[in-house]
C-alpha cells in the first residue's frame, strides 16, 4: 500500500469551507430594538420563553443533581433508617487519607495517558495512513474494520476480553503457549501487576476505531494543495504528517483529548465486568470505588464526595483544554 496525499475526491474533501472568523454576530435590527424599550422587553421575554424549557430540563436533571450530590457529600447517611447527619467536610478529609482513593485516581490518570497515546496520537497516524491509500474501496473497508469494535457495547467487549484473558481457557495464553511463549502466559486479570493494564488494553481496542474515523473526517477537510506543494518540495510522508496533518487537525485533537480524558475519569463498565475493582483493589478507578463505597459499604456520603471529585476533575480538565485549544485555533 502506498501512502500518498489525501485524495481530493475523497468524500468531504471538496466541502472544505473557510472557517468564519470569531466575529460577534449581531441580530439584525438589534440597534433599532434598543430604541424602543417596550419592543425590547417583548423580544427578550419571547427569547426567554424559547430557552425556558431547555433551562428547566437542564436545571432539573443536570444542575440540581449536581448540587444535591454535593450536599450528600457533607452528610453521613444511613440508608436503612433514613437518618442523615451533617458532618461538613469530614468525607473529604477521609478521602485525602484513603489509599485506595489515591490508587484509583492514579489508575484513572494511567487510563487517560494511555488512551491519549492510542486514541489521539495513534489514531491520527492510523487515520493519515488510511486516508493516504489510493484505493477508495480499501479506504472504506479499513475505516469500517477499525470502527466495528466501537459498535460493540463496552459490557459485551469487557466480557469478551474477560474470556480472552482467562488464565486456563483463555485465548491469549493459548496463543502464547502455541507460539512457544508459555513463559509469557499470565493470569492477566488475576494479579495486581497486570490487571489494570489488561483492562486498559481492552478499552483501547474498543475506542481506537471511533477516534480514527473522526480523524479521518478531519483529514479529509485539509486542502489537498498543501500536500501537493509539500510533495513538490520533496517532503516525505512522515514530515507531511507532523507539519501538515497534525497542525491542521488540531481542533479535532483538542476535542478528542477532552473526550478521552473525560472518558478516562468516567470509566466504570469495563472494570466492573472484568475485575470488579480487584484483585486487592488494584483496578479500582474512581467510578468503581464510588460504587463500592455506596453499594457495598453503605457509605453513600463518602461515595458522593468521590463523585464530586470526579466532577471537579473532569470539569477542570475540560475547561482548561477548551481554553488552550481556543487560543491555538487554526484557520485556513
Amino acid at each position, binding site marked *: 500500500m502506498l501512502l500518498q496525499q489525501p485524495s481530493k475526491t475523497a468524500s468531504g474533501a471538496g466541502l472544505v469551507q473557510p472557517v468564519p472568523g470569531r466575529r460577534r454576530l449581531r441580530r439584525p435590527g438589534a440597534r433599532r430594538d434598543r430604541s424602543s424599550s417596550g419592543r425590547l422587553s417583548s423580544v427578550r421575554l419571547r427569547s426567554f420563553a424559547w430557552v425556558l424549557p431547555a433551562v428547566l430540563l437542564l436545571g432539573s436533571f443536570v444542575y*440540581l443533581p449536581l*448540587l*444535591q450530590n*454535593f*450536599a*450528600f457529600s*457533607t*452528610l453521613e447517611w*444511613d*440508608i*436503612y*433508617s*433514613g*437518618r*442523615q*447527619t*451533617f458532618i461538613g467536610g469530614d468525607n473529604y478529609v477521609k478521602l485525602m487519607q484513603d489509599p485506595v482513593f489515591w490508587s484509583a485516581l492514579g489508575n484513572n490518570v494511567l487510563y487517560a495517558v494511555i488512551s491519549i497515546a492510542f486514541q489521539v496520537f495513534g489514531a491520527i497516524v492510523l487515520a493519515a495512513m488510511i486516508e493516504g491509500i489510493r484505493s477508495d474501496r480499501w479506504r472504506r473497508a479499513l475505516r469500517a474494520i477499525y470502527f466495528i469494535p466501537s459498535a460493540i457495547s463496552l459490557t459485551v467487549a469487557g466480557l469478551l476480553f474477560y474470556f480472552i*484473558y*482467562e*488464565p*486456563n*481457557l483463555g485465548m491469549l495464553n493459548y496463543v502464547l503457549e502455541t507460539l512457544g511463549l508459555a513463559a509469557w502466559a*499470565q*493470569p*492477566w*486479570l*488475576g*494479579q*495486581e501487576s497486570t*490487571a489494570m493494564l489488561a483492562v486498559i488494553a481492552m478499552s483501547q481496542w474498543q475506542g481506537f476505531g471511533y477516534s480514527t474515523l473522526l480523524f479521518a473526517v478531519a483529514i479529509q477537510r485539509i486542502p489537498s494543495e498543501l500536500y501537493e506543494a509539500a510533495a513538490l518540495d520533496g517532503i516525505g510522508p512522515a514530515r507531511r504528517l507532523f507539519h501538515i496533518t497534525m497542525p491542521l487537525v488540531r481542533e479535532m485533537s483538542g476535542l478528542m483529548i477532552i473526550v478521552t480524558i473525560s472518558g478516562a475519569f468516567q470509566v466504570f463498565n469495563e472494570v466492573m465486568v472484568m*475485575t*470488579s475493582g*480487584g*484483585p*486487592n*483493589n*488494584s483496578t479500582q478507578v474512581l467510578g468503581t470505588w464510588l460504587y*463500592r463505597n*455506596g*453499594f*457495598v*459499604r*453503605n457509605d*453513600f456520603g463518602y461515595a458522593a464526595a468521590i463523585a464530586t471529585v470526579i466532577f471537579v476533575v473532569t470539569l477542570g480538565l475540560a475547561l482548561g483544554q477548551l481554553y488552550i485549544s481556543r487560543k491555538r485555533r487554526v484557520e485556513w
Partner: protein
Amino acid sequence: MNARRFATVTAVSALAALALTGCGGGSPEAAADVSAAPEYAGTLSILTKFAGEPLEPYFEDLAAEYEALHPDVTVELIQETDQSIKDKTKTLTASGALPDIYFSWTGNWAENFVRGGLAADLTEVLGPDTEWGGSFGEASLDAFSYEGKYYGIPLYNNGKFMGYNKDVFEKAGVKVPTTFEELLSSCSAIREAGYEPIAFGNKDGWPGLHYLQQLFAYNVPGDKLSADFVPESATLDEPGYIKSLEQFKALVDECTDTGRGTNGVLYTTAQEALAGGKAAMYYQEVLEFDTVTAEGTQLKPEDFGIFPLPVPTGAAGDPGAIEGSPEGYLINGKSPRAALAVDFMKFATTAENASTLSAPPYGQPSAVVGAVTEDTSSAAVFEGIGRVNDASQLVIWLDTVTVPEVADAWLAGGEALISGDATPEEVLESVRNASAAAK
C-alpha cells in the same frame, strides 16, 4: 463574576442543596400490622434471589397459583441473581421503594433492616410458639431473630461442603480426606491422574471468604471469633487467623490449577469444571448440589459425594462447625399490605410448596420441618442438610456476618493472598485497620 460574588453564589447553592436534600431522620410511619386479617386486593411486590434457570419458575408458579386463589391480588416479582440482588436491595432501600417482601441473608445484612425499621416484627405470627413458626426448624428461625424478636421467614437452609467426583477419587486412588493435611497431600495423586484437584474461581472475591470463614471456625475459639466480627469488641489477635490464611494459601497453590491466577476465574467456571468431569473437587453450597449433577452434565448424581472441609490437625476452634445459614425473606415494616405479605409467605411455605422447593430441579432445602426427605430431595441435598442439622454450630458467611468495611478488607486481603501480593500478616493487619476504623 468576582471572587466575593462567586463565594456568595456557591454558599447559597450549597445551602439550597442541603435544604433540598434535608437532614434528619426518615419520616416516621406506622408499624405494619402483620397479624391483621389480610385484604385480598391490590399489588404485592416481591424481591427474590431466584433469577435465572433453574430457580426462576419457582416464584413465578407460586405467584400464578396465589393470583388464581385470590383474583383481586396481583403479584409483582422482581427476580435478581445472587450478585445483582445486593445492589438492587440497596438502591430500593435508599430510594424508599423497598418491596412488600424482600430477600435477606442473616447476620449484619438482615440486622441493618431491623435496625432501620424496615423489617416487620413477625414474632406474633412466626415465633416458635405459633402454628406457622412451629413448622420451621428452631435454628432456622433463630438465625433471623434479634433481641428476642423474630423478623425473617427462613425459606431454605444452606451450608458449604466440598463436593467431589467419586469416580475421579477412585481412579486416583484417593480416599475422602479426614484432615486438612490429608486433603493437601491427596492433590498430587489427583493431578497425576489427569484432573484438576480443586476447581476454584475467585473473580468476585467472596468464594475465597467462604474457605477462610470455615478455616476461622476451625482455628479460632468460637467466643473470640464472634467478638471479632463486631468492630467494637474485635481484637483479631488469635494465632488461628494467620494459620487459616496460611492453610488457605497452601490449598490454592497446591490444589488448584489456576494458582495465583484464581482471581481471574469465575465461580461458575469452577462449578462447570466439576460438573464437566474435569475437576475432582469443588467447594460449594448445598444450593448448588443439584446444579452440578443436573441433566446434561458429565457428573452423575451417583458419582457425586460431599464432605465438610477437613479440620486441620491441632485446630483450636470448633471442629464440628459448618459454615452456612438459612436464607429467607423479610416483610417490609412500612408496607401497607404487611398482612397480605404474611399470607403469601405462609402460602409459599406450606408443606407442599416446601417439598417442591426441596426437590430437583430447584434443590433448595426448605427450612420447613419434614420437607427434605430421601424421597423428595436428591441424596446429596438430603445428606448435606442432615450434616447442617447435626453441626455443633453454624457459622454465618464472612461477607454478611460482619460490617461491610471489615468484610471488604477480608475480601481484598483474600485476593491479595491468592495472587501473592500480600502475606498472611499483611492481610490480617489490613483487616485490623479496617475494623478499627469501623468502630
